[in-house]
């Protein structure tokens, strides 16, 4: 019998499709670019952050000052003085009705 061709099973080699490799590279590069862009942008936010922190501090301080001002106006010492100026005086006698 003449052997024309020896039968050899074909090697099943799995080769990653080029598409996936390209996609992975593109993805990585995009992420790198995004990170660089975010870092660049965020660095500039330092000033804004400092302004916001200061603004928060000032607002809290103003709140405290207002709260104290309200407390002062509602104090009995102040109310007694203002009511005296308005002509109010202590009751001399109280009538109890049963």
């Amino acid at each position: 019998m003449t052997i024309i061709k020896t039968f050899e099973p074909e090697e099943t080699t799995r080769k990653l499709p080029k598409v996936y490799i390209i996609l992975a590279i593109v993805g990585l590069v995009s992420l790198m670019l995004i990170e660089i862009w975010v870092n660049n942008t965020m660095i500039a936010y330092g000033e804004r952050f400092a302004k916001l922190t200061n603004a928060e501090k000032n607002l809290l301080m103003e709140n405290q000052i207002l709260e104290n001002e309200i407390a002062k106006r509602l104090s009995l010492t102040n109310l007694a003085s203002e009511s005296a100026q308005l002509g109010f005086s202590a009751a001399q006698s109280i009538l109890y009705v049963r």
Partner: protein
Amino acid sequence: MRIFLIKSFFVFLFLAIAVRLFYWQVIKAAYLQAQAEGQYFTDVKTQAQRGKIFFSDGAILTSSNPSFSMFANPKLIAKNQVANMAYSLAKLLTEQGLDVDELAKDLVFKLSKDLYWVRLKTNVSLENKRAVENLNFAGIGFEQTSGRFYPEGSSSAHLLGFVGSSEKGESKGYFGLEGYYDGELKGISGLVRHEKDALGLPIIIGNFLTSQAKNGKDLTLNLDRTVQYIVEQSLKSGLEKYGAKAASAVVMDPKTGSILALAAFPNYDPKSYLNFPKEYYKDPIVADQYEPGSTFKVLVMAAALNENVVKQDTKCDICSGSVSLGGFIIRTWNNKYRPELTAKETIIHSDNTGMVFISKKLGLDKFYSYLENFGFGDLTDIDLQDESSPDIRPKKGWKEIDLATASFGQGIAVTPIQMVRAVAAIANGGYLMEPHIVKKISDENRVFEIKPIIVRQVIKESTAQQVREMMVAAVEEGEAKFTKTKGFKIAGKTGTAQIPVAGHYDPEKTIASFVGFAPADNPKFVMLVRYDQPSSSIFGAETAAPTFFEIAKQLFTYYKIAPTE
């Protein structure tokens, strides 16, 4: 040879470089790292706010107030600008009624100094700070500080205490609540550590370490704002009217031990405490000792009734005249004697000879044990700093005359808070309560409530009822009957105790007091009013009693208690 020398030279050079590198990279590594971190890290300390103190109705008694300290760098200010700048600042910062020129001169002096930093003014308000910043003066800056704010002024000064500085320069509370609860009130400072850029601005994506500041805890008191105001106004007016050196009053809820009001004069302004004598800082209610006089009789009577050694109608067999004991003569306050005096009448007429009889019946052992049971000789554990308690002489040192005089409140020292607490036991059916100013302690996350504490039962409820009746009779028929509040059943007892001076009692100098509770059948409050050396009259019936009734009348209206008679 030359090649050897050159080689040696290079080897030496490399060694020298290696040693130097070793020095900078190993030995000085920590130092250089700290330097580098100092350049690109910044630490910002966040101040914790001191806790607030509230009245029982939630109104602020004291809180923190941001204020500013103005400073200048005189080196940045041109000499020909100093006067102009000083006058512009003075016009903005001078308080109403004060001289602008005086402040301007002071500012000119400070701005002319050859210094890099000089403080110009403290306690600058936010409004004034903004006005100064709008002037855009070079070399002027502000530091934020925080002080205490008192909306009611110097009210409750003794109760509050004040905030000063510790040895380390940190805020620290002294006396009163600020001293007692300093640990809870002061809080813990925080720290923010972040990377900064060349302009000093934070780098958001850089390292950020924060330790949050923890603000101090807030205190809510049992103190009633209206009752406190009523007591202070009445006491202040009484101090002037009766020409006393000092006055104090304390109002307590007998059922819970809650302190509803506490006032003493002379007092001080906690905001500017340095302008007042140090003697004023101590709260006389918890720290002053005095001889209680006749107010003490109700407690001795309670002891005797509780032990069943006397009854209300037991007659005194030594009361037909003065009593002689151990070389001393004991008389009544008005030299009037009643041979058939009953125990009840002893209280009504405040008879010293009757009390000597009662104390003899009781005996020293039982008397002493009731002294201790009523809490005398011990701290009351009220939550105020600097409470003290006068010692009671050991029992074995007591002579017959000591028992006799102690029975009418002389020769024995107590504090006002001890006295009011003991009488509260009569008001509430026999239980000694622990007095408390603070009702609850709260922070952002939790609230801790302080519950009433019963120390012990001192007398039976039936005994308390009997003593109550005697005290009501004392008000209705005793020396204070002319000034009592009509229509209400008040239980009380006057006291006029001579003050010991250099080993003897001065008859002209007294502590005039009145202790009582009302309404007698279901007491809402127990109160002690005390005048130190009143000059208009030495008697408690004519000074402390009218003040007590005046306060009680207003409290009946406030608590909506209708008259029962």
